[in-house]
């Protein structure tokens, strides 16, 4: 099939199968995350997911045998374009699709692929990731959660923090310590069921009022030994690979502008502009222009970085650092434009946009912390790219 044929077939299929309600902007709470107790808040989101699952298009480039679509890179790009054309919502969100799956495709055994991948594409298992610990934030490799070898199983004890959506997750991919005598070389990568005895989850309330993150406690959790991925004590390399991937994702938050808010320029004109959107105050206007200039340059940089084969850890760190700091700056500029209107917490005296702005501004402060702080990214750039000595 030529790419042109593929495009017209895809277009026709989407036209027929994507329900009208799935072609509208998506509030955060209508995202479909799947899992054993899936929530389909929008009535059409279930059928939309199921139809996409059936074609393997929740994971378009994964092999068909593991539930994927078996598409080439070019075909997958066409699928994305055609979905964007009709503003189709992503049918399924998942740390399995974005993080664990690609990792297993890369380094997993045949058995692991068969066991884990298809359920991910079908949205049957919802995954969370267990990385940070109270004493191991920036110093991730300082993690203390132990996995003791008990012959036929590991016994896991310890505590994770910042586990996104752990309170809704079925399984976790988790960094654990299998050797206490060394630091980086004593870490392993373990998968296990969050419904196992001894797992306890407590959501963390953030300054923005949201609770997407959890503290997760492991008290003598038994994990079968075949659920270890990669080599024993070989988990650090896996962690770094996943982290670079996560950083690239977070760096794009700013470029996307967050999907609950209108684009930055529109927001600025709305709050600081006149009826035509012209910003009369010269200082506010300049603050906005400055950020838009940075946005353009960052956009060009992302394209150039993605375009190049060289997606080294250092470049991911640059994008993560700059993208998140830029997003924070933009939120501060909008807050300056909005004045009192951006300072509402709740209630009818503020409109929805105002309230979302305030919470988004607060939430943006976490961008430069999660996925490795800005300080960690700068360390990485100084070391990996510039070669500055320790």
């Amino acid at each position, binding site marked *: 099939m030529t790419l042109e044929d593929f495009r017209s077939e895809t277009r026709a299929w989407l036209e027929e199968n994507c329900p009208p309600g799935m072609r509208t902007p998506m509030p955060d709470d209508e995202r479909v995350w799947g899992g054993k107790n899936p929530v389909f808040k929008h009535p059409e989101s279930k059928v939309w997911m199921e139809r996409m699952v059936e074609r393997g298009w929740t994971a378009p480039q994964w092999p068909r045998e593991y539930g994927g679509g078996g598409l080439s890179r070019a075909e997958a790009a066409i699928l994305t374009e055609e979905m964007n054309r009709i503003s189709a919502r992503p049918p399924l969100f998942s740390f399995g699709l974005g993080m664990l799956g690609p990792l297993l495709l890369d380094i997993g055994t045949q058995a692991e692929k068969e066991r884990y991948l298809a359920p991910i594409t079908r949205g049957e298992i919802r995954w969370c990731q267990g990385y*940070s610990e109270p*004493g*191991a*934030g*920036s*110093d991730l490799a*300082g993690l203390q959660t132990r996995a003791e070898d008990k012959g036929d199983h590991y016994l896991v004890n310890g505590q994770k*923090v*910042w586990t996104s959506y752990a309170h809704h997750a079925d399984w976790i991919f988790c960094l654990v310590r299998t050797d206490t005598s060394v630091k980086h070389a004593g870490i392993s990568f373990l998968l296990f069921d969050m419904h196992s005895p001894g797992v306890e989850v407590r959501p*963390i*309330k*953030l*300054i923005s*009022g949201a609770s997407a993150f959890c503290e997760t406690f492991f008290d003598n959790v038994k994990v079968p030994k075949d659920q270890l991925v990669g080599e024993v004590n070989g988990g650090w390399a896996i962690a770094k690979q996943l982290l670079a991937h996560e950083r690239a994702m977070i760096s794009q938050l700013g470029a996307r502008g967050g999907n609950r808010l209108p684009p930055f320029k529109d927001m600025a004109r709305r*709050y600081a502009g006149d009826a035509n959107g012209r910003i009369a*105050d010269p*200082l*506010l206007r300049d*603050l906005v222009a400055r950020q838009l200039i940075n946005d353009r340059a960052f956009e060009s940089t992302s394209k150039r970085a993605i375009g190049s084969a060289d997606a080294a850890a250092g470049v991911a760190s640059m994008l993560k650092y700059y993208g998140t700091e830029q997003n*924070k700056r933009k939120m*501060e500029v909008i*807050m*300056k434009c*909005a*004045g*009192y*209107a*951006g*300072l*509402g*917490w*709740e*209630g*009818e*005296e*503020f409109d929805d946009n105002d309230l979302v702005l*305030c919470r988004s501004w*607060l939430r943006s*402060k*976490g961008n*430069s*912390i*999660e996925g490795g*702080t*800005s*300080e960690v990214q*700068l360390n990485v750039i100084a070391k990996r790219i510039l070669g500055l000595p320790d």
Partner: protein
Amino acid sequence: MADQLTQQDHELLRDTAARFFGERSPLGAMRQLRDEQNEVGFDREVWREMSEMGWAGILIDEADGGVDLGYRALGTILEQSGRTLTASPLLSTVLSATPIISRAGNEAQRADTLSAVADGALMIALAHEECPRHAPHRIATRAVKNDDGYVINGKKTFVLDGHVADRLLLVARTSCEDDQREGISLFLIDNALPGIRIKRTRMVDSRNAANIRFNNVQIPAGSIIGTVGGGADILDPVLDGARAGVAAEMLGSGQEAFDITVEYLKVREQFGAPIGSFQALKHRAAEMYCEIELARSAVYAALDALDQKARDAAELVCVAKAKACDMLELVSNEAVQMHGGIGMTDEADVGLFLKRARVAQQLYGDVVFHRQRFADLIGL
């Protein structure tokens, strides 16, 4: 009177205030008022105690029942209240509304309000702002003369303590265009007149503010303060006092958020060492220290200039509020960032300072407003 306070007097007042807020109104108290969604928004008992110490009457003449210690003294108290994020009628009643009556109220208005304010028995809110950003002379609310006095129509926003005050100090327009300095008049009115609708606004800092709508509100002719159309001349210096006072509160908040953060840098360990031993964080902390010290100098200089009625008082107020805004934006952001994930949790105190910071930054003009006003004042 104000400039007779010695350095020792100020230090004594500072220590007294620090102890008082630390004991009677620590950060936890603010958190509790927030979590119980307290409708008053501050602790009336704490306010009674503050009034007993004379703080409610600190800007009121002794002849009117106050103690008249001046802006520097009030700033000292506000600075300490900023450290514990204590909400009280200090900002609304004491700093913003009452000085208008002190300066320009007639005998009846003074007798009616000043000693009651000084006793902590009366609260007055300044109903002034109409735009989302501070715009002191952009007043569209109209006061139209009729046989019974004036009829008010319009809408006020972000009125501090608007929903709990007993009286409103209303800024309305009796003539001229919506953004002219001329034609503004001031009125002291009751908050419960027919046609007034007051809605509390739930702000990110959990402090009190309200939107107030006026729909054909009839007020008596005797409500007016000062001359018809001459309100800006009374309002402007009072606003400068309010700006300096808020800057003093911000100074305290910045200092406290900074102190909490420096302490965290000393105890939080990563990579086998306290994170405060990492040079990049050290330098950023040292830069914050400098900015706090500059803001401190600017705030004290502005407060002193107000007490001394110095010719460059307005300029120094711009400097103080501008520096306080930049300082507190920097410090509140760095405080969260340096706390890492902890700083993002509701449980950590630094987030409370971040939230209060942005509200205080907007209050009576943000850094953008004050840089432009400063440039205007010095003829740039």
